[in-house]
């Protein structure tokens, strides 16, 4: 089977403090130093990921499970190219739809319908493609009545519904799903799970992050337990 996502010995360093605690003077000094300290930590730095190896095949659904701050979301961010690894290599083969945080691209002053266009384009859809899908997106979200209302007046559940509906309509090959099923009522949650399962049947590749073990077992082909930036166990 074709490998869709491949992480080879990936390390990621983060700063503990806000970057502005470093001064411009320090930065200028660092600029003239050789950048040989990739492997070591300086003051105020920590490893968010320590040598992650992960390969996901086409049509596979991998679950990431672990305590808060273990590095699950960082892995998703690396796959979606939002951030880059300090060391190691990441190969992604196909279009990625990050559902890292649903509705991240919403603008509060725009209506639901306008935000469908906005968010769809951010997820890489073309304008004509979105036009074709608008009706089906609205139908899936069950927000027909509120779709021309500015999203600042939406409840958080409505917000989630719209965001999920848009994301799920993207033509991506690889879906990154981060803890999005935690919100929303039971009926909608069920609908989402069914939709995810049907995407899986279509051969879409998925990486799912969740704290809900029962749900993960339902969705994922294998579950990786991540702790302090390392894959501790896989099942």
């Amino acid at each position, binding site marked *: 089977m074709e490998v869709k996502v491949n992480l080879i010995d990936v390390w990621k360093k983060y700063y503990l403090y806000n970057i502005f605690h470093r001064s411009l003077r320090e930065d200028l000094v660092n600029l003239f130093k050789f950048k040989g300290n990739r492997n070591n930590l300086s003051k105020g730095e920590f490893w968010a990921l320590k040598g992650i190896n992960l390969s996901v095949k086409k049509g596979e659904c991998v679950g990431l499970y672990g305590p808060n701050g273990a590095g699950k979301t960082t892995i998703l961010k690396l796959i979606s190219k939002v951030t880059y690894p300090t060391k190691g290599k990441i190969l992604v083969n196909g279009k990625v739809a*990050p559902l890292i945080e649903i509705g991240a*691209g919403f603008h509060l002053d725009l209506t639901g319908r306008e935000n469908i266009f906005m968010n769809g384009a951010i997820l890489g859809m073309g*304008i004509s493609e979105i036009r074709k899908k608008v009706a089906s997106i609205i139908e899936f979200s069950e927000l027909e009545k509120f779709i021309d209302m500015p999203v600042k007046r939406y409840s958080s559940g409505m917000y989630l519904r719209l965001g999920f509906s848009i994301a799920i309509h993207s033509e991506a090959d690889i879906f990154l799903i981060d803890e999005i099923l935690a919100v929303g009522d039971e009926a909608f949650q069920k609908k989402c799970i069914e939709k995810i399962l049907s995407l899986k049947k279509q051969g879409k590749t998925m990486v799912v992050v969740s704290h809900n073990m029962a749900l993960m077992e339902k969705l994922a082909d294998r579950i990786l337990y991540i702790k302090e930036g390392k894959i501790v166990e896989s099942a």
Partner: protein
Amino acid sequence: MYKRLKNYQHLFLIFIWREFSIRYKQSSIGVLWAMLQPLSMMLLFTFVFTYVMPIKITDYPYMLFFYSGLLPWSFFSSALNYSIPSLTNHYNLITKIYFPREILPFSGIAVAFIDFLIASLIYVLFIIIFKIKITLQIFWFLPLLFLLFVFIISLSLVLSALNVYYRDVKLATGFLIQLWFFATPVFYSIDKLSVKLKLILFLNPLTFIVENMRRCVIEGRGVIFWQYLIMLFFVLTLLYLSYKIFIHTEKRFADVI
């Protein structure tokens, strides 16, 4: 640059449309605001140099003279004002979804350009009212506009990227743009200045652009070709370097912002 943006042209269009609709959503006179800024500045300068400090600046009608400088200047200053904070304003997108980041400053520039087009209508109106004789030299306006565009794009790439790292950039540009205004021949012409002063002012690329934009439209004078080539070379080099810096710093935007 083209290759990176090819698949995202729709996103670019939607960003422009969004900026525009948000800006004028709850305003009653809408796009007229785009004309108001250069118009009010023009009236102020005309008032000052006619009544407060009556100095002979030019033989052309003051209103027209000032407006011809304010038009490119407003494009420059509002483009920078929109684009420099554009990355930091969208931190919620940058930390979550990948797309070529330069789309954000570019859509700021595009919005300023639409304002510029609207404000140009008044310019055309003035040219007709004051019965200015148009010559073929007016075609120089487009290559000059191209220079202005490239210059604006370069500056906004570097400054918006730097602003992600140091918010000082936004604070500094606020007043630097004000200083820059006086170093640009908007309300004066470099024609009557000494050669030494001219050379100093030409260190500012906007001097060349703004002065020649005025000459080719209302004075019917052409642009000296070798000077244009030097300027072109200069702004294109600047663009190349700025884009390099942008691409280099982009990788850490999400971690730093």
